[in-house]
C-alpha cells in the first residue's frame, strides 16, 4: 500500500489551530472558507482514485491468474473439463484435498494417492460413507454417505478423468452361478468376512466388515478396488462373471430366511454357547428352583 495519506499533503502553514479553523468557516471572510472547501474536494477525489486503482490492479491480477494457471492444468489433462468433472473438482477441493493432495497425489501420513484408483474405488469409499474420513484411525468405519448420488457421480468423473482406473460395471451384477459364487466366496472371501459375510476381526483394530448392508455395486467395487486391508481382486484374478457370481451368492444368502429358527447372528458356536448358558441352563435352573420350592 503505497498510497499517500490524503491528509498528509494538506498545507500546514496556515498557522491557525484546528479549533480556530472551524470558527473561521463562518462567512465573515469568504476566501479562506472557499479554499478549505476546495481542499476537501480534491482530498475526496484523490481518495476515490486510489481505491479504484487498487481495485483495478487486484482485478487485473486475479483475471490474469485465473486465465493463465488453469490453462496449464487443462493442457496437462489434454482435454477441457466437462461440467461433471468441474463439479467433482469443486467437491474434491472442498472435502478431499486435505488428505489426498491438490493433484490427487496423496499426502504422506494422511491419505493415499488417488491417481489410477478409478471411479470404482470412489464409488465404494464414498457410497459406503467411509470417505470423507472423520478421523485417522485403524480403519475407516462405514457410516451414512455424506454425498448424494449425483455428487458421487461428479466425484467419480473427476477422479476417473485424472488418472483413470477401474470403472463401474454395468448390467445385472447378480448374473452369475450361485453355487460357483458360494465356492469362490468361501475360497477368497470367507477367511476374513466369515462363511456368510458376517465379518471378522483383523489385527490391531482392523476388521473385515460385515456385508449385511452392502449393495451389489459396493461388493463389486470393493473386489475391484481392494479398499483398506482388502486385497484387490482384479479381473484377471476373478473374472467379471465370477465377481457377479460372488455378488449373487452373498446377496442370496443374506436374503435367505433361517429355516432353523432365530439365526442368532449366523456366527456359529460363540453365539450358540451364549444361548445354551443364558437361555438353556438359566431356564433349567429356574425350573429346578421352582421344583425345589414345591418341596
Amino acid at each position, binding site marked *: 500500500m503505497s498510497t499517500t495519506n490524503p491528509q498528509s499533503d494538506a498545507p500546514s502553514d496556515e498557522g491557525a489551530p484546528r479549533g480556530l479553523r472551524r470558527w473561521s468557516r463562518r462567512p465573515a471572510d469568504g476566501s479562506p472558507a472557499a479554499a478549505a472547501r476546495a481542499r476537501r474536494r480534491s482530498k475526496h477525489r484523490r481518495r476515490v482514485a486510489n481505491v479504484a486503482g487498487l481495485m483495478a490492479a487486484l482485478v487485473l491480477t486475479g483475471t490474469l491468474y485465473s486465465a493463465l494457471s488453469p490453462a496449464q492444468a487443462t493442457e496437462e489433462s489434454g482435454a477441457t473439463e466437462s461440467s461433471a468433472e468441474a463439479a467433482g473438482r469443486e467437491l474434491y477441493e472442498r472435502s478431499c484435498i486435505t488428505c489426498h493432495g491438490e493433484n490427487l497425489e496423496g499426502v504422506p501420513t494422511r491419505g493415499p494417492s488417488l491417481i489410477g484408483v478409478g471411479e470404482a474405488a470412489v464409488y465404494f469409499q464414498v457410497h459406503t460413507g467411509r470417505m470423507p474420513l472423520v478421523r485417522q484411525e*485403524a480403519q475407516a468405519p462405514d457410516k451414512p454417505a455424506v454425498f448424494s448420488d449425483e455428487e458421487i457421480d461428479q466425484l467419480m468423473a473427476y477422479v476417473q478423468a485424472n488418472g483413470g482406473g477401474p470403472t463401474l460395471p454395468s448390467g445385472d451384477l447378480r448374473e452369475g452361478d450361485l453355487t460357483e459364487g458360494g465356492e469362490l466366496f468361501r475360497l477368497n472371501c470367507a477367511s*476374513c468376512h466369515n462363511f456368510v459375510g458376517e465379518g471378522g476381526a483383523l489385527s490391531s483394530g482392523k476388521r473385515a466388515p460385515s456385508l449385511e448392508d452392502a449393495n451389489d455395486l459396493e461388493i463389486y467395487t470393493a473386489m475391484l478396488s481392494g479398499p483398506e486391508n482388502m486385497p484387490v481382486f482384479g479381473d484377471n484374478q476373478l473374472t467379471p462373471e465370477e465377481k457377479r457370481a460372488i455378488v449373487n451368492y452373498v446377496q442370496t444368502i443374506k436374503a435367505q430366511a433361517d429355516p432353523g429358527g432365530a439365526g442368532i447372528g*449366523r456366527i456359529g*458356536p*460363540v*453365539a450358540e454357547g451364549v444361548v*445354551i*448358558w443364558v*437361555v438353556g441352563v438359566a431356564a433349567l435352573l429356574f425350573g429346578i428352583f421352582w421344583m425345589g420350592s414345591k418341596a
Partner: protein
Amino acid sequence: MARTATAPGVPTTPLGKAALEVDDRLIVAGPLRRTLNKVFPDHWSFLLGEIALYSFVVLLLSGTYLTFFFDASMREVVYEGTYAPLRGAEMSAAYESTLYISFDVRGGLFMRQLHHWAALLFVASIVVHLTRIFFTGAFRRPRETNWLIGVALLVLSFAMGFTGYSMPDDLLSGTGLRIVSAIILAIPVVGTWVHWAVFNGDYVGEFIVGRMYIVHVLIVPAIILALIALHLLILVKQKHTQFPGPGRTEHNVVGNRLFPAFAGKAGGLFFIVFGVCAALGGLVQINPVWLWGPYNPAQVSAASQPDWYVMFLDGSTRLFPAWDINLPGNYTIPALFWPTLVLPGILFTLLALYPMIERKLTRDTASHHLLQRPRDVPVRTSLGMMAVTFYVVLMISGGNDVISEKFDISLNAMTWVGRIGLVILPPIVYVLTYRICLGLQKHDREVLEHGLETGVIRRLPHGEFIEVHQPLGPVDEHGHGELAYGGAPVPKRMNQVGGARRAIRGFFKPIEEPAQVELEQRRDEHGLAAAESRELTTSGRPSDGGRPQEPRD
C-alpha cells in the same frame, strides 16, 4: 386259585393278580419295595446331575433318529438336492446326507437341532453338576470313585461332542478336524504315527468320518451308558449326601421316598429338560451347515470356533506365545503342544485327583455324608473359583475374534487381556472369594451370638439408641446366644423365623388370600400381626439388645 383267593392280603384285582404272577416267577417284590422306598434328600441343587442324565436321554432318542438318514462316508458326490445355493457343488456323502436331513427329511432339521442343543446342554449340566459336587465337598470319602467316574464322563462327553461336531464334514467341522489333526501331530515322538493310525494316512483321507461315526454312535455312548449306570448304582449304594439341618446326621437320609414323590419330581424334570431342548431346537438355529458349505482344506472362515466346552482349548492356543522348540536333529516341539495337550492334561489330572489331593492336605480321611456349605471351606471354594476363572478367561479368549468384531475392540487388545487376565485374575478371585467366605461365616456367627436384626430401634432413658436383636435361642447372662453353628443356613431375616406373617404361597402368582393368612397367623400367634396384641417379650436392653445386663437399682 379258589383256595388262595380266600387268604388274607391276596390280590383280587386283575392288576394285582398279574403282579402276583410276575412276582411268582421273578421274585422282585422285595427288592422293588426296597428301591421304591429309597429316600432321596430334597434340594434343588441335587437335580443338576439329573439334567445331565435327561439331556443324555434326549441325545439318545434324537441321535437314533439321525442315524436312520446319516451316511458316514467320505465318498465324493455332487449335490443335487433341495438347497439351491449348493446345487452342483462337490461334497462328501456325509455332508450331503446332513443337508438331506436338514431339508428333505420330515422333522430332520428339528431333530438335528434338538440333538445339538441337547449336546450343548449335556456338557453344560455336567459342568454345573461338577461345580456343585466340588463346592459342597460331596466328593469326599467314600465318594471318590463316583467323582472319578464323573470326570471320566465329562471327558467322554467332550469326545462325543467333538466327534458329533466333526461328522457332518462341513467347512466349520473340517476346520476343527484339521486343528485336531495338527494337535495329534504335535505330540512329541509318536505324533506322526498316531496321526497315521487315526486318519489311516495323511490328513484328511477317506476314513475319518466313518471312524468317528462308530466312535460317536457305538463306542463312546456304550461306555457313557455303562458309566452312568455305575455312577447311579454307586449313588444308590452309598446313599445320597445331604445338607446339614435339623434331624439330619451322618447316619440318616432325610427326604422323600423314590415313589411317588421323587419319581414324580424326576419325571417332571425330564419333561422340563426335554421341553427346553425342544424349544431351543425348534426356535433357535444351531450349526446351519448349509451356510458353512462343504469342507475343502483350501478354505477357512473367520470365526471358526469349536462348541463352547472345547473353546477353552482354542482360547489357550490363541493366548499361548508362538514358542516352537527346535531340537537338534530336525526335531521340533511345536507351540501347539503346550496349550492343547499339556494344559488340558494338567487340568484334567488335577480335576480327577482333587479328592485325593485334598485328603492328603487336610488329612481328613473320615467318611462324610453331610455336605459342607462353600463358605465353611474357604480354601476349597476359593480354589474352585480360581479354576472357574481360569477356565472362563480361556473360554472367552476362544471367541475373542467374535467379541473383538462385535464390540469393536482390537483383537490384539483382546489377546493381551486374555494373557494378562489368565495370570492375574485367578489369584485376585481367590483372595476375593476367601474374604467373601470369611465375611459370610462371620455374619452367621454374629447372628447366632447376637440374634437377628429386627429393624426396631430403641432409645434408652439416657438417650442412647440401640437396635433390638432377636436371639435365635436361649441366651447366657451376657445376652449372647448359646446356639452352636451346625453347618446349616442361619436365618438372617425376621421373616425366616416367623417374625412377619409367613409368605403367601404360590410361585408364579399367589394362590391364597393375604387376608386369610393374616387371620391364620393372628390365630396361631405368629408374626407381627399377632405381636400387636401381646407385649413384646424381648423388650428392654439386656436380653434382646445383645448386651450385658446392667444392674438396675
